[in-house]
């Protein structure tokens, strides 16, 4: 038993921390206010091989482990949560399933350029009436010769407005329920692929998402990811990894809020002393620090299990559930430590509160995580 990061993991952490300090922290507030996609930052993520962290080098990735990925996600999200989720979607939700379920030909076309960061991927599972209940997919794919004709819509697709390809989930056999879902790799320039305007969101404003519509969109049968009917399995296994990414994002947001609160508590004075000399503030800081560390333990454990190739659904769900709810608590406490200043857009902490909030919702709400965890607990 050993809780220390390896030299490589520490080096990735240092590199990402420096990158965040240099490129992200000085810009994140502006990107948030103007809802500006962080074009340069995403390009630089690619240069640092952070868009395919756990993808083997032969497919254009960095060939690192998932602990490296979690550590990198925390540091990048600590700088800018929007940049963090852009990175997470490309790594966990796009590259990971293509790596795991793709054929060699699919990997050449749909993995290597994306892991290198030349292209950007997204993940199309959620629909207007199929969020947590992913099995009630209404998007259909019907086989016509060598092609499938896809009709339907998806929404809240992060990276959607910018993505070059999507891992798209469709219903190929409605009667079969879960077993009737099939995934496809679809370039976004396919005729019949229509994107709506980016969503207007409360937070992670620099990471754009949108609805998309498919109107008689024809996709070659060879673009099927996994076998027909395997879609639900592809989606669930992908989300097990994605939850590690979002849990790490939550951890990064919490750390940003926490570190700003610690700094501010040393500067701001009330009743003749710095506010951190008041026990009320000290106790908030102590609780924040403790919960951040607790969350990190859960996150790194899940990443470690993924690296070992063992089932980690429960552990990922625990990491995601705890880290996301922790991030909201910590960001709110950090805002409280800042008092009125915390509510002002002159500081970053109000952004952290808004950014943290989504981590309890996407990639499986807290309620879905509890369903996953309890199902495992009660299994005989």
């Amino acid at each position, binding site marked *: *038993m*050993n*809780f*220390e*990061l*390896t030299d490589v*993991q520490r080096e990735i952490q240092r590199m990402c921390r420096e990158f965040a300090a240099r490129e992200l922290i000085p810009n994140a507030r502006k990107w948030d206010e103007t809802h500006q996609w962080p074009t340069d930052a995403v390009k630089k993520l690619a240069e640092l091989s952070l868009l395919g962290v756990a993808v083997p080098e032969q497919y254009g990735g960095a060939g690192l482990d998932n*602990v490296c990925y979690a550590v990198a996600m925390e540091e990048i999200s600590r700088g800018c949560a929007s940049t963090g989720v852009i990175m997470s979607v490309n790594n966990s939700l796009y590259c990971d399933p293509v790596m795991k379920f793709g054929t060699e030909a699919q990997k050449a076309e749909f993995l290597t350029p994306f892991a290198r960061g030349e292209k950007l991927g997204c993940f199309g599972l959620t629909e207007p009436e199929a969020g947590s209940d992913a099995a009630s997919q209404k998007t259909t794919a019907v086989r016509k010769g060598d092609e499938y004709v896809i009709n339907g819509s998806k929404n809240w697709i992060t990276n959607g407005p910018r993505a070059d390809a999507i891992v798209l989930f469709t219903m190929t056999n409605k009667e079969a329920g879960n077993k009737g879902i099939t995934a496809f790799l679809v370039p976004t320039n396919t005729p019949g692929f229509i994107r709506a305007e980016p969503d207007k969101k409360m937070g992670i404003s620099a990471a754009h998402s949108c609805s998309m519509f498919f109107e008689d969109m024809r996709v070659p049968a060879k673009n099927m990811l996994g076998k027909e009917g395997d879609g639900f399995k592809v989606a669930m296994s992908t989300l097990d990894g994605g939850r590690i990414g979002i849990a790490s994002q939550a951890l990064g947001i919490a750390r940003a809020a926490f*570190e700003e609160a*610690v*700094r501010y508590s*040393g500067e701001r004075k009330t009743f003749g002393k710095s506010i*951190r000399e008041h*026990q009320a503030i*000290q*106790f908030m*800081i*102590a*609780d924040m*620090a*403790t*919960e951040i*560390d*607790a*969350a990190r*333990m*859960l996150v*790194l*454990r899940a990443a*470690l299990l993924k690296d070992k190739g063992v089932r980690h659904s429960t552990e990922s769900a*625990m990491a995601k*559930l*705890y880290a996301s709810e922790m991030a909201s608590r910590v960001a709110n406490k950090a805002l409280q430590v800042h008092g009125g200043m915390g509510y002002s857009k002159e500081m970053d902490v109000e952004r952290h509160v808004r950014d943290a909030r989504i981590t309890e919702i996407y990639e499986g709400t807290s*309620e879905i*995580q*509890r*369903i996953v*965890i*309890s*199902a495992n*607990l*009660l299994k005989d």
Partner: protein
Amino acid sequence: MNLELTETQTLIRDTARKFARERVAPQARKFDREEFFSVELFKELASLGLMGVNIPGQYGGAEAGVVSYSLAMMEMAAACASTAVAMAVTNMCAELICKFGTEAQREKFVTKLTSGEAVVGSFALSESHAGSDPRAMRTTAVRRGDKWVLNGSKQWITSGAYAGVMVVWALTGGQGNKGISAFIVEGGTKGLIIGKHEDKMGLRGSNTVALTFEDMEIPAENLLGKEGDGFKLAMIALDGGRIGIASQACGVARAALEASIRYAKDRKAFGQPIAEFQGLRFMLANMSTELQAAELLTLRAANLKEEGKAFTREASMAKLYASEMSNRAVDKAVQIHGGYGYIDEFPVERYFRDARVQTIYEGTSEVQRLVIARETFKLLD
């Protein structure tokens, strides 16, 4: 990073688990109901190496490290929190004497603790007006020839009536950190008066007494560490002790969770097992998630201590989080059991009472928060 247990750690955990399930758990209700202290049981614990898990073999210990100790504590506490706390205090005293004692002290007293000859150890720091703030203590030790003479009294001393070896803190200088010294006192020493057994809400199988010292003479060579080192020794011991109590909290919470899962599958309401209701499943999911976070924080602190690294902040985090987690868990366990959670036919009301002290002893949650905040400012400034 690697979370796999070593062979030794697995062996100690399994040994503790087997003993806890077979020998301790069946008696836990009796210990609680009858406030029964089983001398025999502690001798058995000693024979398994569990009274000196992190003590070198030459002094009768298992020499298995701090992670093993933490794992053993979790197992014992899952069966009986009262037994676990006596085990924790004994291990803590043995470690303290091992670390700061002379060779003669180690050979004499550590061996007594690890072998079971002392039955259990006691840690006598708290006084009626000096709990979280030990500097306010009033017990004095005065040197007279080749003796120290102690006068004063101690409060809330775990296992005090049974301990063959205890570590006692007293003022040898003025008030303040540097005026405190630690001494090794043997059970039965003349002038050592055992006060009345405290009637407690929980941990009723654990003996808790006041100790009074009336011109109690102990040999000069029983000074532990140097004169004036007492405060430092106490703080170091408590850092380690917090890992023990965090482990105890994890054990009790695990027992509460397991009892809740069993009950939820068995009990029916509205035509189906209550385990089928989301309201209940979500409680179990929260309990399990928080328990595992607490276990990881605890094992991290244990691992740092084992590797000789700084662990004050991490031990306080583990203690704070695990103790508050266990209180949430036992409360939910009572809720899940409904009326049956409130009666002694089921063990969860005992878990509830046993968990409550965990946010108080070995440094209250408030003291842990002070430590964590202080260490955080040091780390980030």
